[in-house]
């Protein structure tokens, strides 16, 4: 169902699209008329999500991708071009979490987090730019994090990778601007997704500590965690013509959290 057709005739590729922010973004794009390649490393939930969308007769395809692997990304871009002949919007959303304390992080863990969360963003852009430059409004949206804007305990690899995404986005904006491609980042705060699960079980937003500090005392001003849709809307803005003079921006979507930090 097209709302305003803000992405009519556009083709988008979204990584980390099996669930959460990535899937909500795919849905928002589809509502605005886009055709979408959904990528994820987790093949089963990806295929399930795409099967759902196909049942609704939406123009989508699934391509399993490991963003830290350049060949894997190249195949996703190639599949997109093969299906629809163009690429207008890249959303680099795939990321892995890591909360290993300073003393415990191994070089392999460090490399893996940087490989997916930072290298992956670069590799996706490199693969997409030769096609984005032919778009009337080529747009790259990289998903960073407010953790990449501040210091954070037990998050050296994750927060460093996200800080890297922030400045990589600024450099992309400068380098790709003359090609007619915009590059922006979103820095989400607490969002209700699988990534907010602590140690695989408890949801961070359900802990007494969170309810006390962030909700009761208002350290999170809007007093609720965000929903994936709360991030998908801003991503849609950055993908659409409404942001055609916005590039190099790091848009914070955090319910005001970083105002009180």
């Amino acid at each position: 169902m097209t709302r305003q057709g803000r992405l009519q005739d556009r083709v988008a590729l979204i990584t980390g699209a099996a669930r959460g922010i990535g899937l909500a973004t795919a849905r928002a794009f589809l509502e605005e008329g886009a055709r979408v390649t959904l990528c994820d490393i987790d093949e089963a939930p990806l295929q399930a999500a795409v099967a759902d969308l196909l049942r609704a007769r939406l123009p989508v395809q699934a391509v399993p991708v490991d963003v830290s692997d350049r060949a894997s990304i190249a195949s996703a871009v190639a599949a997109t071009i093969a299906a629809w002949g163009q690429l207008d919007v890249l959303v680099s959303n795939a990321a892995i979490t890591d909360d290993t304390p300073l003393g415990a992080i191994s070089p392999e863990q460090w490399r893996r987090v940087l490989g997916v969360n930072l290298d992956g963003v670069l590799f996706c852009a490199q693969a997409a730019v030769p096609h984005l430059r032919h778009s009337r409004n080529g747009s790259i949206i990289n998903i960073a994090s407010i953790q990449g804007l501040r210091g954070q305990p037990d998050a050296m690899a994750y927060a460093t990778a996200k800080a890297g995404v922030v400045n990589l986005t600024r450099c992309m904006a400068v380098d790709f601007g003359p090609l007619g491609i915009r590059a922006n980042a979103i820095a989400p705060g607490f969002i209700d997704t699988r990534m907010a699960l602590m140690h695989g079980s408890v949801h961070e937003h359900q802990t007494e500590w969170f309810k006390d500090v962030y909700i009761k005392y208002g350290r999170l001003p809007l007093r609720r965690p965000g929903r994936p849709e709360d991030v998908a809307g801003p991503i849609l803005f950055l993908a659409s013509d409404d942001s055609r003079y916005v590039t190099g921006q790091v848009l914070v979507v955090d319910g005001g959290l970083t105002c009180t930090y």
Partner: protein
Amino acid sequence: MRLEDRVALVIGAARGIGLAIAERFIEEGAKVILADSDEAAGAATAARLGCGFVRADIAIKADAERAVAAALERHGRLDILVQNAGIFPWTLIENIEPEEWDRVLAVNLKGTYLAARAALPAMKAQRSGRMIFTSSITGPRVSSPGHGHYSASKAGINGFIRAAAIEFARHRITVNGVEPGNILTEGVKAARTAEFFQSMERMIPLGRLGAPRDVANAVLFLASDEAAYITGTTILVDGGQTLPEGADFRLEPE
């Protein structure tokens, strides 16, 4: 339509960016009241757009309250406040007299607080509202000679946005801003030379100056449902101008 039946007060809307915001809001179904200190131009613009107008010098508390009252009287509620009124005299700091400093701070910064304070009771009662303030890249990100007072006022707006976002969030009111770069308004077109625009374009990654509508689109986004979880921040609308090292730095006006 993204602002269907929403009531919006746009202050500083007789021309330029404020006018583009009002036009964009109307296109998306909003009921708009314009406010401006220039009564003749503001009334003419309002007549052309078919919306209400109220004369207001936003540096004066009673005027801010009258503007809000006009919106409430005409449409019964206030969903969106845009405070866009601002002045930008060019004076080196060594020549800024206290009266000029006070006037710039009064319109640009005090006017923002007065507009927010005037709109708050209605939005509090509704338990919803959007406040959007026009800041600038000049002050919060960069500056140039001749903009001492202007830079201070606009950087002050960003601080006020954060503080107001924290205080108003409990009433489900969000507070955000836009930071325009070089926008080709009629006023800017008249004040600058073709050489200036060419040198500016070379420094901007997107290769052009902005249009008022570019800023209006960002304001529309912040006013829309899609920005529900955004508060206390700003969107730069500058074509990437503040990212690379710039070259335009002159001590004398043209």
